């Protein structure tokens, strides 16, 4: 009956249940408060309506009452805050060993590239029951990567990476929206998230001939001549990148930072900004020389140099992934690689 008139969105990720639980709690709390106020207002309005000869009874106020309705709501609010914070923190912290997907947003399309090398546009195939981490950036304005069924949203900014993650629990095809207004075709910047059973996903993956993204990165790394300085010994003019990713790095100015995706990105585009201690600021900028996609490949390559287990990247073994938490039957066209747009599983 509700095919055309849904009242609740699909719940297809591990986060979705948590968000829904808090949402339902909020509906109950605010429903009770609304009921309280409405009942009181309607009752008082009817009971104390004007009658000839009956004067209003003046009441100045009551400190105990004021304190009651200050402190009780405050207590309730703090519960909501804590609960919301926990849900948020979990939804913002990608687990280790996630499968990684690089997202490049542009007016008005989503370009997605799996760490394994598959490229997609406005469509993302993911397996059920696996943590997927999105490393996202924009080529132009601010966009926002929004999958309602996963209760997941993250703005995608130009000039830096933002990160989001999800763990799909139910095979199917779900909406992908751009949620941050981005210009003329904002409402056309939509796509499909295709969640598949692991076996089907493997089949889909193997259909693609290209190598992993880090291999592309390695090629670019060689073509741009990065290897001449970033050597695998300690003699290079630049730091040795082996095993560097994810580790703390001591900078020239004394600060220590973690070598994360944004740091690698910044070091390629603005090498002078955060020079590693003991090295000279001799690296030229690659701003305007590498595209966002090439940048992603380079980042993926640098990450692949890290010891296993540090990043996930290619280490996640599909065979070890448990089936979805919610082993619902595979729905209609969750498996087809190029599922036609506009046909959705609800």
């Amino acid at each position, binding site marked *: 009956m509700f095919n055309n008139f849904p009242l609740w969105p699909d719940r297809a990720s591990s986060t979705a249940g948590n968000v829904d639980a808090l949402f339902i709690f909020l509906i109950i709390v605010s429903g009770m408060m609304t009921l309280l106020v409405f009942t009181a207002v309607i009752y008082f309005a009817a009971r104390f309506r004007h009658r000839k000869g009956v004067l209003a009874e003046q009441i100045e106020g009551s400190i105990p009452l004021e304190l009651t309705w200050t402190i009780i709501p405050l207590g309730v609010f703090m519960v909501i805050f804590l609960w919301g914070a926990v849900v948020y923190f979990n939804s913002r912290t990608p687990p280790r060993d996630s499968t990684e997907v690089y997202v490049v947003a542009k007016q008005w399309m989503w370009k997605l590239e799996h760490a394994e090398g598959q490229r997609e546009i406005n469509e993302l195939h993911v397996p059920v029951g696996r943590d997927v981490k999105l490393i996202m950036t924009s080529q132009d304005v601010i966009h926002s990567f929004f999958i309602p069924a996963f209760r997941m949203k993250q703005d995608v900014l130009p000039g830096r990476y933002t990160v989001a993650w999800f763990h799909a629990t139910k095979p199917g095809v779900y909406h992908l929206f751009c949620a941050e207004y981005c210009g003329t075709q904002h409402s056309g910047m939509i796509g499909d998230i295709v969640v598949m059973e692991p076996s089907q996903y493997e089949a889909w993956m193997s259909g693609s001939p290209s190598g992993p993204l880090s291999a592309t990165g390695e090629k670019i790394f060689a073509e741009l001549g990065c290897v001449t300085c970033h050597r695998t010994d300690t003699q290079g003019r630049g730091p040795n990148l082996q095993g560097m990713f994810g580790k703390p790095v001591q900078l*020239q100015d004394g600060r220590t930072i973690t070598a994360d995706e944004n740091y690698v990105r910044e070091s390629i585009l*603005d090498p*002078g*900004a955060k*020079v590693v201690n003991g090295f000279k*600021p*001799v690296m030229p900028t690659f701003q305007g020389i590498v595209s966002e996609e090439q940048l992603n490949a380079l980042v993926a390559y640098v990450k692949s140099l890290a010891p296993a287990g540090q990043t996930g990247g290619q280490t996640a073994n599909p065979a070890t992934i448990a089936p979805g938490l919610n082993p619902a039957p595979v729905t209609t066209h969750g498996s087809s690689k190029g599922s036609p747009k506009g046909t959705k599983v609800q």
Partner: protein
Amino acid sequence: MAAHAESHNPALLHHFATEEQQRNSASFGMWIFLATEVMFFGGLFCAYLIYRRLYFGDFAAASKSIDALLGGTNTAVLICSSLTVVLAVWAAATARRTLLLSSLVVTMLLGCVFLGIKAKEYKDKFDEHHVPGATFSFEHEQVPNAPEGVYANPRHAEIFFALYFIMTGLHALHMIIGLGIFAWLLIMAWRGRFTPEYHTPIEIGGLYWHFVDIVWIYLFPLLYLIDRHA
């Protein structure tokens, strides 16, 4: 508050009960206006502090290219003008006509000196292609106190100069408005409109001038003196 205070003074507006009420309202209004001005500049200071934190070395290099001596001189000029303003208020309150007129004139002269030095500074920046825009260039500028060969990122330096021009430009605009106000005060003082009982416009104009001075007191170290030590 007496309902019918002497309403002989032509400067007392109809809707005020007393002159005191009118004077207090005017100065209170000015202070609130200055609160608005603080937040107006506050947005710029916020942007400045954040970028200074993110791009400290680039900001330091850009800051070093500005002539701090000119900036320091301008600070002294403004402080002197604040003194003459306060003298003008005192002269008006004590009916010293000559001191009042000369203080106003000197204040305006100092204001012009400030703007002149500012213009020289702007011209230098223009000649050095440090004005943000198509001709901007800040290549191979050494970052102070960094190893040899660490150059400022021109794009970040451009943000510094953008903020420098907007902040000092807005300040200079306030100076020009201040000069207009003081020219008007001078005319009124020349015509003998101010008495020890009624000189609110001088007080209020003075508050404005001092505020512009205070803004500069912060702008000077923040813009001119980042990481100057050798």
